[in-house]
């Protein structure tokens, strides 16, 4: 018996068959072209804002947090919608977020130990 059968999941579709079985993986439908284009336009606007903010002297004191937030927003939009993490199995998210957490740990350890800084 495979793990999928044990959990009551049809291997071909990921559909839950057992009464008591709980779905362990989300395999929702992907968005359509219209939604992809909306996300693309949003990404273009965020990029324009990033570059504009870079040139506004009055924002120089808060430049770093603004850019980091905007960058994180773009990153999330691409990963969630274009890479479908929002719609696909949670296992994929676990792998990717695990990698990102390891990177965060690496940054903290390396920059703290060797004296580097983000800015």
């Amino acid at each position: 018996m495979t793990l999928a059968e044990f959990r009551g999941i049809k291997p071909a579709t990921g559909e839950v068959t057992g009464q008591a079985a709980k779905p362990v993986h989300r395999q929702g439908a992907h968005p359509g072209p219209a939604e992809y284009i909306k996300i693309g336009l949003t990404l273009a606007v965020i990029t324009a804002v990033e570059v504009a903010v870079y040139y506004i002297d009055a924002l120089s004191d808060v430049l770093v947090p603004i850019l980091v937030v905007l960058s994180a927003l773009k990153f999330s939009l691409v990963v969630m919608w274009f890479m479908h993490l929002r719609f696909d199995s949670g296992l994929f998210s676990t792998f990717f977020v695990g990698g990102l957490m390891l990177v965060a740990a690496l940054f903290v350890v390396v920059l703290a130990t060797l004296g580097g800084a983000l800015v």
Partner: protein
Amino acid sequence: MQHSSALETNTGLDNRKLLMWLFLASECLFFGSLIGAYLLYRDKSVVGPYPEDLFDIPFTSVSAFILLMSSVTMVLALAAIQRGDQHGLRIWLLTTAFMGILFVSGQAFEFTEFNRQGLSLSTNLFGTTFFVLTGFHGAHVTVGILILLSLFVMAQRGRLTQAESLHVELAGLYWHFVDVVWIVIFTLVYLIQP
């Protein structure tokens, strides 16, 4: 050849997609190490040129924009094959590859320009970490372009059908990952300077 929907796995997920996500997780560490090294050493150079002497933000912004928009065309290629639109698939694959080529060409121009202004891999710590980081990213984009062109040829020969959309999805995952890495590099390397 079995299609993705016919594969039986313990997890109920396609192993190829699972493997791709594991690969991308490992790539996070690869690029994380290079970005960390850049942040650590970029302001430790004892001789110039320095980042502020060289970076051309308007030029790099356009490059970043092109790569970002190539993610849109990539995902449109996936949407096309998923609804069986072969013509759309070929158009979007080719558009994505073209935008990738534009990005890599811009990077080659930037490297040449930096080199003309005295920065090489061995000039200073900034040069070493910058070229290694952005060079490896450019190499990844180049591999992505080759994958896209291979898919285009397969589609042209009728060997990329709706049932094999997973090939495009996996290529898309790689391409989008390369894009998100550049989102981070563009902010941390170009826009946020010490």
